[in-house]
């Protein structure tokens, strides 16, 4: 096992800021929450910010002339400033959505459904989350465009040679995940964006599993569209972000219509509000934007580079620990430098559902299933995997508890 003393963050101290992790469990044991790739836990200060918003400043945003409405608007827009700042992106190109899935759907419908024509190609990879394949399939079915899937190597990387061969004159969009939620692979998105742009294609980067865990610089990635979600980065559910090139947002027609997104409405038609509000129809998730803003300030206080260093150390501990479990097969890269915080694995003779159930009895929370990556599951030749995923509050103790429970689990189910 690695030496816990080498870990870059004082996770034990950080855990105290998360009420769920600090609360005693009914059986007196510790909670080993290893499902942060599904959703992160929330620190008290995020809960407080949202609570304070409702107690002190609740009003609808943007339209009111009274003081309270101005205060609500300030707190809401401060959330946008924080989200934009975290990824080094202009605020006018930072659109709030319901989640990352809706952000991708926004691009697929507001851009793809209008711009794609028969024979155009959208290139995705075999390791995309369903949120970055299904919207494109829907739009392709309507426009006659084709969705092409770039294969993944046995090591769990995008097959870059295949991708190079796939991106050509017919390619209109290359949509790729930054860090795989299933394999943990960190993909070379800057290189892929450059490759796509050289062929005149637009790009979308799904940064859902990278923004919470490492420094992400939208300007240096250079993608036309980047999406991420609040609830995986210590913020609340119900809010996601589309970071888009402002020029695209100005050129695109709206996605959803309604209040807030208009400039003028007549019986003959309507004109649109300035960006980013043009893409935010209806009353937005105000408290959620406030919570996201506080989550960003929390991450900035901890330091995205330090979170990354911590998770690399956790990855080293995790890879060693999983090696000690008989009959375990890990999917995805083995090099901590090249992987994020998700670890998918199979245990010989034990179904992932049974692993998940058994581990729960030991206070260890992992996910079992296809992780919304069914094309990848088929490529790996499995129906499902078990997945442990770490975050800034994960400690070596959590990893050791996982290892010990896995060894016990295999004995329990009588695997040879």
């Amino acid at each position, binding site marked *: 096992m690695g030496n816990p003393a080498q870990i870059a963050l004082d996770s034990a101290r950080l855990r105290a800021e998360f009420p769920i992790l600090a609360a005693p469990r009914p059986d007196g044991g510790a909670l080993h929450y290893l499902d942060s790739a599904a959703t992160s836990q929330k620190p008290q200060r995020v809960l407080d910010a949202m609570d304070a918003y409702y107690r002190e400043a609740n009003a609808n945003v943007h339209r009111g002339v009274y003081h309270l409405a101005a205060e609500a608007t300030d707190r809401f827009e401060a959330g946008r400033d924080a989200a934009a700042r975290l990824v080094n992106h202009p605020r006018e190109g930072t659109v709030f959505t319901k989640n990352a899935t809706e952000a991708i759907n926004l691009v697929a419908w507001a851009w793809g459904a209008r711009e794609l024509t028969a024979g155009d190609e959208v290139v995705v990879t075999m390791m995309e989350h369903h949120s970055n394949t299904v919207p494109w399939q829907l739009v392709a079915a309507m426009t006659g465009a084709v969705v092409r899937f770039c294969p993944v190597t046995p090591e769990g990387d995008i097959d870059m040679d295949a991708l190079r061969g796939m991106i050509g004159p017919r390619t209109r969009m290359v949509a790729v995940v930054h860090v795989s939620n299933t394999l943990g692979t960190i993909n070379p998105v800057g290189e892929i964006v450059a490759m796509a742009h050289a062929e005149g294609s637009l790009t979308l980067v799904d940064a859902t599993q990278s923004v919470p865990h490492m420094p992400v610089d939208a300007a240096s990635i250079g993608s036309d569209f980047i999406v991420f979600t609040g609830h995986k980065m210590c913020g609340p559910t119900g809010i996601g972000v589309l970071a888009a090139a402002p020029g695209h947002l100005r050129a695109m027609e709206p996605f959803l219509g309604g209040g807030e997104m208009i400039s003028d409405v007549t019986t003959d038609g309507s004109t649109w509000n300035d960006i980013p509000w043009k893409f935010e129809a209806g009353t937005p998730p105000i408290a959620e934007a406030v919570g996201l803003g506080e989550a960003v300030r929390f991450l900035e206080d901890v330091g995205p580079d330090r979170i990354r260093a911590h998770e690399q150390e956790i990855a080293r501990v995790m890879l060693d620990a999983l090696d000690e479990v008989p009959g375990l097969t890990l999917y995805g890269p083995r090099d901590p430098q090249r992987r994020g915080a998700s670890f998918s694995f199979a245990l010989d003779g034990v*179904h*992932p*559902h*049974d692993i998940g*159930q*058994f581990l729960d*009895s030991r206070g260890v929370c992992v996910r*079992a*299933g*296809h992780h919304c990556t*069914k094309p990848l*599951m088929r490529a790996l030749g499995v*129906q*499902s995997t078990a997945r442990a995923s770490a975050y800034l509050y994960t400690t070596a103790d959590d990893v050791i508890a996982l290892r010990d429970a896995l060894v016990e689990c295999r004995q*329990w*189910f*009588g695997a040879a």
Partner: protein
Amino acid sequence: MGGLDDLYQQLILDHYRNRRGRGRLEGASASVHENNPVCGDECFLDILVEDGRLADIRADGDGCSISQAAASMLTEAARGRDLDDALALVEHFRLVMHGDAEPEEDLLGDAVALEGVARYPVRVKCALLSWLALRDCIAEYRETTAMGG
């Protein structure tokens, strides 16, 4: 760790490790293929109907211990029953899984050991996969024979 023992009774682990009625049936009267979208588990179910009875039944596919043991127990509990009896058996098991009936051991046989699954809502679908597949398979059989005759 009473909870875990309650869910995974020895009888379940025994059926999981030594599946009964596993495989496919040559010349089946009806077949269905169903899956659980939550976990991707799948079940192939074949029945052979002779004189209105389930002369044979086989279940195949991959899944967790609960789904595999439930399929194994189903083949034992359903084999030899006439079709209406088999449907009543499935309905009883379904009610037990949803906590709406007390399990009758005479009817369920070893499947009575699955009683504890009712307290784990996420796993109820695992247990029901093959049993509801039998219900669909009998409906499929009746539909095709009605059309044929």
